[in-house]
């Protein structure tokens, strides 16, 4: 195991994020505040409570998941796409490191940043609404597992993408709609029965539901199913990454 290399990539990637520190911190704080103003104040005044949880508090886990998913994907996909784009990937490919170590460095850094953002949002939300975390261990589990899984997913997108459009395509057209329709801001019980069934096909629902359970013990689906689903995604992404590693897909000619 080439720890120095993993460390080098990790530090290098974190430095890239530090350069945009202001933007990285200000934008989630701002957007969280906006969500609270729009959803919490405007809509929340009409929806008092969901499952006995005040609406403002109810949306916090969904809000965290939204940022976590978007940022994990964009950080990790950009992190590996950029060296491909400017050509510096040659150095990573010629270094005495395995693909696993490359993944550890890039995905580790992307997941770390997402976790930092998640924490910032939690803190910001705490200024607006009361928050309770009933199951801190599971809350951390969902947080870390989601950050890692979607950073892996982003890494795969970054390797697959050979232009900027493709890089934006999946996050924009797939992930963001899934998050919004996955019960970030509502309980699926509020939907007509038909749409409840449809929503069950949305993988993000399981993440948000499980995550919210760790806060308030209310969930749309059982928490065991949520845990199984996040582990399934993790396994899928790991499998894909392993396949890329085996075939050198889009990295080596």
């Amino acid at each position, binding site marked *: 195991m*080439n720890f120095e290399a993993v460390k080098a990539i990790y*530090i290098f990637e974190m430095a890239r994020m530090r350069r945009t520190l202001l933007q990285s911190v200000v934008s989630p704080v701002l957007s969280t505040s906006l969500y609270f103003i729009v959803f919490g104040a405007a809509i929340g005044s009409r929806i008092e409570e969901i499952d006995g949880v005040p609406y403002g508090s109810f949306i916090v886990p969904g809000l965290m998941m939204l940022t976590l998913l978007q940022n994990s994907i964009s950080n990790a996909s950009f992190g590996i796409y950029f060296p491909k784009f400017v050509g510096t990937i040659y150095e990573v490919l*010629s270094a005495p*490191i395995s693909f696993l170590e490359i993944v550890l460095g890039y995905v580790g850094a992307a997941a770390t940043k997402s976790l930092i953002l998640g924490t910032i949002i939690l803190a910001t939300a705490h200024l607006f609404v009361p928050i309770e975390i009933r199951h801190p261990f599971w809350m951390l589990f969902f947080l870390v597992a989601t950050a890692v899984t979607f950073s892996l997913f982003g890494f795969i997108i970054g390797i697959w993408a050979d232009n900027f459009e493709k890089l934006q395509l999946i996050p924009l057209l797939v992930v963001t709609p899934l998050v919004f329709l996955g019960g970030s801001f509502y309980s699926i019980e509020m939907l007509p029965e038909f749409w409840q069934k449809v929503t069950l096909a949305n993988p993000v629902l399981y993440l948000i539901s499980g995550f919210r359970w760790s806060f308030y013990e209310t969930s749309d689906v059982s928490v065991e199913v949520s845990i199984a689903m996040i582990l399934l995604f993790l396994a899928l992404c790991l499998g894909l990454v392993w396949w890329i590693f085996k075939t050198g897909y889009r990295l080596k000619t």
Partner: protein
Amino acid sequence: MQHAISISKLSKVYDSGLAALQEVDLDIRNGEILALLGPNGAGKTTLISIVCGIVNATNGKVSVQGHDIISEFRAARERIGLVPQELHVETFETVWDTVSYSRGLFGKKPNPPLIEQLLKDLTLWDKKDSKILELSGGMKRRVMIAKALAHEPKILFLDEPTAGVDVELRKDMWQLVRRLREGGVTIILTTHYIEEAEEIADRVGVINKGRLILVEEKSELMRKLGKKQLTVELNEVLETLPEALGGYDLDLENGGERIVYRYNSQAERTGIGSLLADLNRAGISVKDIATEQSSLEDIFVTLVEESR
């Protein structure tokens, strides 16, 4: 003796179906400077990219100081430094950070004094805190060299190191190459500037259309293939060459004022003595004579043409 790099039956067919390398066999000795010559598209970069792990070979084996590049890729790659042909550098990072990063990537513990010395050697020291995107093209190339050397490689690949490079950097680079060689580093450089190979290499390999046409000591190559020519300036214009000189490979040039004699410098008898005697006998008066050795460039052109 174990070779720095040992390549056997190496072939590469790109997805496009193009055979960039065909059964290349090449042993590179420890501590030598080998110049790979070849026209554009000959396969030089492909060869280097395979050795460095950037391109997968279609067939064949490569080992680096005895370590297979696939099964022992760590041991193989940590010995190698690469300065690629294209200018690929990070943009927003500082010179210091990017060079230190390269060292880490190759599994070496940080060593600030070494990086400092490296940057000083490459006259990059006063730019250490500059962002790379603020540097000129020549400076960027220096950064790439520093990155390649940051992990103290035993073998250095320089792919077209002087293409589009200013005189000063070229001079510095050759100085560095000589110093590295004195320190035992094996250096492989590709170029299509023949003078470069002539100036610095110990051995020369010629690649054309994916085939290694030959590898030879530079001096041996010059000796073997080096044709010489003798130019004889005449006092009076000759209409035609006298029959008495029919036994020589002669050309009458410059409107009959000059006779050119081409001969092989490695032959036992060059025939110069008898030619001069025969000229004298034929009553041709000689104003001046000069000999010229063909350069590597001429040799190279001949070889490439022969392999067409």
